[in-house]
């Protein structure tokens, strides 16, 4: 894939979608270890139930990391200037998350040609889990 350039992209352009396999317990356990988030609510069903949840659920930062993959799969990571998200729903076991993004604005930021990309993730039922924006410098 050719890296995007400021002149080659238009407002409204979609980033290639990133589709993830359904969330399972193994994924949550691996992410707990790798990310350092050892909150047992994500890996121990007994703890999850004691806090009123039906089962373990995904770490928010796992979903943000997937959105990060969407961005770095489109433009090189060193071009990423900002990445901000709001977690709007809990990602449950079995949720198959799709990450999408579109170019929302072309702008000059700190003297660099940049694009603002709107990103979101949703499960197979269309329930939105994360919404956010990224600022990416493009040559």
């Amino acid at each position, binding site marked *: 894939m050719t890296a995007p350039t400021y002149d080659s992209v238009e407002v409204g352009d979609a980033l290639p979608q990133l589709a993830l396999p359904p969330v399972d317990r193994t994924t949550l356990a691996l992410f707990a270890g790798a990310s350092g988030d050892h909150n047992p609510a994500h890996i121990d069903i007994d703890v999850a139930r004691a806090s009123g949840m039906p089962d373990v659920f995904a770490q928010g930062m796992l979903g943000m*990391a997937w959105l990060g993959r969407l961005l770095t799969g489109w433009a090189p990571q060193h071009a990423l200037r900002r990445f901000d998200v709001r977690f709007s729903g809990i990602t449950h076991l079995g949720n198959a998350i799709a990450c999408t993004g579109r170019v929302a604005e072309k702008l000059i930021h700190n003297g660099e040609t940049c694009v603002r990309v709107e990103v979101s993730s949703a499960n197979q039922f269309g329930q939105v889990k994360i919404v956010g924006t990224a600022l990416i410098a493009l040559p």
Partner: protein
Amino acid sequence: MIDRKWIGHQVGQSTLAVERGRLRFFAKAIGEADPIYVDQAAAQAAGYADLPAPPTFLFAAELDSNSMFGLLDQMGIALGRVLHGEQGFEYFEPVVAGDTVVVTSRVKDIYDKRGGALEFLETESTAVNQRGATVAKMRGVTVVRNG
């Protein structure tokens, strides 16, 4: 309710040694297959000194040190009541394997909604590498469910 005296509280520093093995583990956990995140030669060919830390990796600093969960504990907040509300990163320089990053945080604000049913703990952090360069700034909002 969280005591508002915590607003402005300085959270202890967290030192994160960025290791290749940990980055490969993180890449595996998030399903990242791009060779620049797992193969040194590919990373260097792409212009990085070593394997780059993915965009959200630095969040690990305050989890590894337990400073973030420790802060919640000090405030009397059970982990089972918290959800991640928002997270933001601003990037200044790449972080790669071999770097040592020190993250310093403060409690920026605490506020509530729905008559206190939900409380929001906002923190801001600065990440500095071993050369003294600020590599990233982070902002987080933790949501606390009361009742």
